[in-house]
């Protein structure tokens, strides 16, 4: 039995835990404002807001309900467009949308509004940058977005008066959300826990890949192991000289984590290039890694950052270097019963330079064509250690051992770049779009060097 609250109503269901939330909402609850556009988290028409306890605080975030198994909403508050409608008429955000003509065919509209509702409930700073980011997973094919952006600008202005300490109370008072929001925290605490004795079946994290790639298999398997719900695997801490990221930490949590921002200040900007807010709110850090995609953004990042994985098998733990973790296309060094517990990343110091590059067909909300990351230790202008990972140019994310070996002992200059590029080109084996990918590897390497040592290279190195 899975129990949660949908809008103002408690629900208890015996449906298969793998059932996508969108179907539960539309078919079983007849909440039809949540639309189906793609069933792969790429259009945002099915966006809903989820409230749950994180650090003992009720926290709201947006998700795409097509990729979320109902097992992952146990004990949570699910909010659909019907759950924010005033009795009649429009709430202040809806009014701004109407005023600006930000809805044409209307099919994507509830998704955009839920994205923004998640944003205003989330406690994030109210800026236009953040507000736009909250709908970066929503596609509109009619408006060209101008009218939506105009509406968002006005909404951000309206919200400057928001009470940061007690946002929900303020939002209720100003009719952004209905009154029942005030009592949700108490009601959630009283919900029965999930009565699941022997969890077995497919291991599902955030579901953001499995529900796309293996949809039929997931929905026909009655049982799943919802590891994303393992609170003990969630969270980020600094232990000694390492950053320890719990496997079930959501990508978006990592992005905003104070610890991460302290040691990897660029990661906030870089991870914004990974899918969308909605997806990052669901996707777990380990999910992106165990999935084994040859273009995994976090895999590339952490492999270059010299990360290790802590893997548990019924209490037996082992450590694996991420660069040794992949055995072939989508094949990881994992055995029956293995669960990744944490990702351990050595902390950078003042001599560390780290840069991540990604180019895709569309800059945001897209899979990389080529992504790469380079970590250099530079002492007295000389590279003393190098760690370089490239995705999209082979069956797995490649650790560029030969290029790294060459780099140690070199200075960052045009000559080193040219030679390093030559070696890198010999290490990769792109099959499709080969020439383009080789060009990307070269220009990305140029950018890595330029980021590490501004002005050390000149454009002549590229020609």
């Amino acid at each position: 039995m899975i129990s949660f609250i949908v809008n103002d109503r408690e629900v208890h269901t015996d449906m298969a835990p793998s059932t996508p939330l969108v179907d539960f909402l539309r078919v079983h609850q007849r909440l039809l404002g949540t639309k189906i556009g793609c069933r792969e988290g790429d259009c945002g028409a099915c966006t809903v807001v989820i409230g749950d306890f994180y650090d003992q605080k009720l926290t709201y975030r947006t998700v795409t309900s097509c990729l979320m198994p109902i097992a992952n909403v146990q004990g949570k508050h699910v909010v659909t467009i019907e759950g924010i409608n005033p009795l009649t008429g429009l709430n202040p955000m809806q009014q701004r949308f109407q005023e600006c003509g930000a809805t044409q065919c209307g099919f994507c509209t509830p998704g955009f509004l839920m994205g923004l509702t998640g944003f205003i409930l989330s406690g994030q700073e109210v800026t236009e940058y953040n507000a736009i980011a909250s709908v970066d997973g929503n596609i509109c094919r009619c408006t060209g977005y101008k009218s939506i952006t105009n509406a968002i600008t006005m909404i951000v202005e309206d919200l400057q008066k928001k009470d940061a300490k007690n946002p929900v109370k303020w939002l209720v008072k100003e009719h952004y959300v209905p009154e029942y929001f005030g009592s949700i925290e108490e009601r959630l605490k009283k919900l029965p826990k999930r009565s699941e004795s022997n969890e077995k079946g497919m291991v599902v994290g955030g579901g953001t890949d499995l529900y796309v790639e293996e949809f039929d298999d997931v929905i026909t398997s009655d049982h799943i192991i919802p590891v994303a719900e393992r609170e003990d695997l969630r969270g980020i801490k600094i232990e000694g000289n390492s950053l320890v990221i719990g496997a079930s930490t959501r990508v978006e949590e990592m992005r905003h984590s104070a610890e991460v921002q302290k040691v990897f200040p660029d990661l906030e900007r870089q991870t914004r290039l990974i899918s969308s807010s909605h997806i990052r709110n669901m996707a777990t850090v380990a999910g992106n890694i165990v999935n084994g995609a040859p273009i995994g953004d976090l895999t590339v990042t952490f492999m270059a950052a010299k990360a290790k994985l802590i893997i548990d098998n019924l209490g037996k733990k082992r450590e694996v270097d991420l660069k040794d973790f992949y055995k072939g296309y989508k094949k990881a060094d994992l055995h029956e019963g293995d669960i990744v517990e944490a990702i351990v990343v050595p902390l950078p110091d003042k001599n560390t330079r780290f840069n991540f590059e990604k180019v895709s067909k569309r800059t945001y909300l897209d899979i990389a064509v080529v992504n790469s990351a380079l970590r250099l230790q530079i002492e007295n202008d000389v590279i003393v250690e190098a760690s370089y990972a490239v995705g999209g140019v082979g069956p797995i994310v490649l650790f560029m051992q030969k290029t790294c070996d060459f780099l140690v002992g070199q200075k960052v200059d045009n000559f080193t770049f040219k030679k390093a590029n030559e070696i890198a080109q010999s290490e990769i084996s792109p099959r499709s779009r080969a020439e383009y990918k080789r060009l990307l590897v070269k220009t990305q390497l140029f950018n890595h060097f330029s980021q590490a040592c501004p002005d050390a290279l000149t454009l002549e190195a590229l020609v």
Partner: protein
Amino acid sequence: MKPNKNTENMRNIDSVGHLRGESIYVDDIPLREGTLFGAIFTSPKAHGIIKNIDLSKALECKGVYKILTHKDVLHRNQVGGIVEDQPLFAEGKVMYMGQPVALIIADTEKNARLAIKKISIEIEELEVITDPRVAEQRGELKVPSRTFALGDTEFAFKGCEHVVEGSGEINGQEHLYIETHGTYAWPTEHGDIKVCSSSQAPTHVQEAVHKVTGLPINKIEVEVNRLGGGFGGKEVQGDWFAAMAGLAVVHTKRPVKLCLHRHDDMIITGKRHPYEFDYRIGFDKDFRIRSYEVEFYQNGGAFADISPAIMERTLFHGTSSYSIPNAKITVHSCRTNLPPNTAFRGFGAPQAMFALEAALYKSAEKHRLQFIELQKINLLREGDIFPYGQVAERVTAGQCFEDLEKSYDLQKMRNEVEGFNKLFPTVKKGIATFPLCFGISFTTTGLNQGRSLVHIYADGTVGVSTGVIEMGQGVNTKIIQVAATTFSIDPKRVKIIPTNTTRIANASPTAASSGADLNGRATEVACLSIVRRMKEYAAKMLGTQSERVLIKDEVVYVDNEKTDLGWDKLVHDCIFNRVSLSEHGHYATPVISFDKKREKGHAFAYHVYGTAAAVVEVDCLRGTYKIDSVKIVHDFGTSINPHIDFGQVEGALVQGIGLVTNEELVYDAKGKLISNSLSSYKVPDIQFAPKDIEVKALETMPSELAIFGSKAVGEPPLMYGFAIYFALQEAIKAYNPDRKLKLKSPLTHKRCLEWLYDGFKI
């Protein structure tokens, strides 16, 4: 007539429902008891002979009720339109990967989908053609090739000072309406059926269901409430799914629902036609165009669909917005083993315009001219003759261009781009303009008609039903404005009743940007008839003549003097005194005609003009780019609803930007669509769409053939996207002037990086 002031600022009447998530699309219609669900089994090969289909395992699957193939078609296995060449279910052979072969009907959608995998099919593969030029060589044409000609190009070339030739290509485009195709159909009494479809053309749907079931048309009721986007993709191809569901209803006597998963929608349905082209363009010594020849290879896909009509619009727009005295435009409509390509906003015109822009761009580069200057001196002028013989009248091409130069200080924009490029070695900006001229009317003259059914009810409220389909373009709001203005009543009194074939028969599709013109005018005709009868009655009551009576702001006036007779009482008394307050209005666009034998005629009611300027910025170390700004001057005539019309311009522009940038359809050599999902096909998102879009309305003398003088706006602004394409070319040139110029669209990040480093060693 001008719209009532109180209606001009009306917001889309659907917006409250949309914003509350309460608007009803096909997938939201409450389920009827006993509903069965469909899923389509499609061909896994692009071309071949069907040797065997084995349904036995699928029939044993849980919940499967029945599986329909061509053998179960009750009348004709045919959904072709202009040419009857397309079976509903593949029969004997398959022509493209994704072609429907069978429909599985099961108790749940999940069970229907799971059974698909249990069907096996044996196909003897035949050669797959995906290249339109190869198809043309083999004589694989959908219809005979056509040519529009003006003057004598051969002779004119002899007198030209400069002649440039080359070739290029422009891509197809997935519609990506966020609502996929859907149909929900159920049996009613007497063996009749009702079909709710996400179609732009309920009459087509009705005819398609009739063709496959054999039911007479009057037993098939089709209703369309609204679409979650159409863009042309639902103009004819909705027929197929409605025909399947309709057939399934007749077989099962149960309600049947068929709403497509995105992947299925993408592999089954056609897209915008990719074109390849070869051109030759000749100029006099002052670089005025004297002669232009172009030959297009339209990649049509497996079946005729409406490619012949699209080919026709390419011919009509061969000379785009330019003054060209000698022109010869030829189009070959080529049959390939791809999904049957179909209507998409612009309908063959964007391809024609892109080719001419490409020819001019190449000419400018070859002769070291400014592209913008070359465009400007060749703009269409009053009295020019289009290759199809129509004289260009009320031309505002030059006016739009000059207004753009002044309003946005184009020279300053150009100087800033140049200045920027001198300062930054690895980031380059580019600027380009695009002049637009787009003809309004269906080029098939017979389609230029609309009908509207108007009722005034006893409480003074009004119901209007037309043949038009609301798909986000705001046409229903405009129809309300027309009715409220013609009756001179509060628009709140007017309601749009969903489009239904029992109310409006034989409707033209909602297409060609013509929905508001045709159905708005029909509504006006209907309202005027009712008004005339109401005035006659009021005159009798008030003891005067009806010419002296006026209804204004819901009050009856005599000789401009207000009377005590208000709208409510007038309505009530009319009904009681047996005056009909219902009318079925019909409108057929006058003036237009076209003689296909001579390929000459007055094909368009009027033309829409405009000019766009775009500034882009290319990151030369990544091959990525962003759009700084797009400035537009657009000729709306006198817009009936600027709010809605500006929204159409912005939306069309960004769709046009997508076409020439990120939106890349990829097929492999075997005819398999690789970009078959939203994770592999990328339309503009909120971060890519330009923040700075400015649109200025050019006040012009309106065409009396446009509704209330408000020019059609749906399609034309899509082509402003070309300004972005050529601005990108300019930026790439600024970084690598020695590259070999290629005029291929889309200009993806991939092409951008490759062209930036063209000639460099990796």
